[in-house]
């Protein structure tokens, strides 16, 4: 495991008027991230994703718990952790009046890399992130997507083992977003472990090898996107019927592939493991019993259903 955390905690105190309030941002996070995977933190704003990430990136000290990153202890050797990680903040990290090349060279040199090597790496990074054209222009002239790519290039200029990306696609247009997903996958291909946070369901689903769903400072579920979705009772086959709802319910009640059955006035809902392969059977059974149907629909569970099942709220609403 390249990242392991146990009981990571952090609370902040804030003042509202005279009252002092303590907010428990992260309340005991246990995590294991395997080398070479894209690991995602999914959760609503304020769930504690960024705080956890900032703790792992040595930017804030945990109140409790412990972590090792690439074999280095976070609390005892934060300085050595910095050498093996890269961190890309949510809000950007470039200076308006600097050029991408200047930022890259200086950032590399802050890791102790020599001047010539820093220039070499900056050129390579500019090429790899399709920034060579604007390399010597000031950062303030870049588009949102270009500037975000500079941020990522800065985060990996020292070839870290782990790179933390905080909301890498927030604020990007759909095209830049798709582009960014490709960049993130490239990082994995280069052998890096990517740890990202997101509040986008589709991003977590499409991009992450494994996920932890976070809410109110705790992890409520963990697994691959497919595993997580299967936990929520699997697929739903919804059969709309003009009549005989009760009869149909009776027929399917005893079927072994149905995990759970719900009826409405004009339809039955069958919770099954693998909806696509069950549909032919459903149709045959209905036919054999002489029950007519209007339509069949297949619902695959989304990560939002997972979130709903674990927290009682929809991620879209929170």
């Amino acid at each position, binding site marked *: 495991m390249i990242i392991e955390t146990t009981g990571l905690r952090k609370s902040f105190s804030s003042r509202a008027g005279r009252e002092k309030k303590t907010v428990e941002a992260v309340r005991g996070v246990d995590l294991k991230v395997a080398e070479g995977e894209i690991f995602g933190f999914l959760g609503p704003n304020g769930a504690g994703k960024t705080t956890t990430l900032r703790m792992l990136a040595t930017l804030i000290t945990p109140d409790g718990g412990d972590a090792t990153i690439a074999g280095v202890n976070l609390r005892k050797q934060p300085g050595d952790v910095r050498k093996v990680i890269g961190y890309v903040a949510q809000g950007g990290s*470039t200076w*308006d009046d600097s050029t991408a090349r200047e930022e890259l060279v200086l950032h590399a040199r802050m890791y102790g890399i020599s001047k010539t090597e820093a220039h070499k790496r900056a050129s390579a990074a500019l090429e790899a992130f399709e920034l060579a054209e604007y390399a010597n222009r000031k950062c303030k002239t870049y588009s949102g997507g270009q500037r975000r790519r500079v941020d990522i290039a800065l985060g990996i200029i020292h070839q870290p083992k782990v790179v933390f990306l905080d909301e890498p696609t927030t604020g990007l247009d759909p095209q830049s977003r798709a582009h960014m997903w490709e960049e993130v996958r490239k990082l994995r291909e280069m052998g890096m472990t990517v740890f990202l946070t997101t509040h986008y369901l589709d991003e977590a689903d499409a991009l992450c090898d494994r996920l932890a769903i976070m809410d109110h400072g705790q992890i409520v579920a963990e697994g691959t996107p497919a595993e997580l979705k299967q936990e929520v009772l699997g697929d739903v086959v919804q059969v709309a019927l003009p009549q005989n709802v009760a009869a149909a319910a009776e027929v399917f009640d005893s079927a072994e592939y149905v995990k759970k059955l719900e009826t409405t006035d004009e339809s039955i809902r069958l919770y099954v493991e693998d909806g696509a392969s069950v549909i032919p059977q459903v149709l045959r059974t209905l036919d054999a019993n002489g029950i007519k149907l209007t339509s069949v629909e297949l619902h695959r569970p989304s990560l939002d259903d997972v979130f709903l099942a674990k927290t009682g709220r929809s991620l879209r609403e929170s």
Partner: protein
Amino acid sequence: MKFLRDTWLVFQRQMLLLLRNPVWVVVGITQPLFYLLLFAPLMKKALGQGAELTDAQAYLIFVPGMLVMVALFTAFSGFGLIAELRAGVIERNRVTPVSRVALMLGRCLRDVVSLLFQAVLVTVLAVLFGMRVQLGNALLAYLLIALMALLLSSLGYALGLALKSEDALAPMLNTFIQPIMLLSGILLPMTLAPAWLQRVADFNPFSWAVKGVRELFAGNPGSPDVWKALVILVPLTVFTLVISSRAFAKSVR
């Protein structure tokens, strides 16, 4: 050595950005120039106590005050830092193994260099108006104001990191700088002040600095005011440097 190399890296970048946009160096010099041209001539009669001073004599008293005034302005360093905080540059630096002291010191040295440039400009102008000062004494005076700049800019950075907002920093600095300026005898020597005011001014380190610089310009490098100024400024500067580098190292939310 890593620390020196890191400081040089930070300093280089800050200088590059300063030279790219040198307008602030120019803006910083306008106020002392106005004082020099529009206020110093008044001093000829006011300070002469009956007899009128020459331009050269008036400037020998007034220019040191102006140099300290320019140095006081380095306390506003926090504003640039808040902009860097907001852009995420500081945070990006803080995830690297770069020395935290270097992050602060590199910036302070940039402030010292730009201050010295302004100081030389003010001095050269005064020399054109007839003021005469020995090079050695002037260099020693520059050392004093460089110390002041180091002290105040590091303090400014610590304040910027603590407050994180221009809206909080501006009134805070104005509240402190105003009395410090008035109590340091920048415009008129504190010897003209009533006894109680002089007592109060004795608690202002910059009042000692002004005295020291004036003695140097007057051609008395051996005056006790010179070494007193050094003895007061050096430990204070070390103290603020430590405070400020701690602020850079401390976790910022």
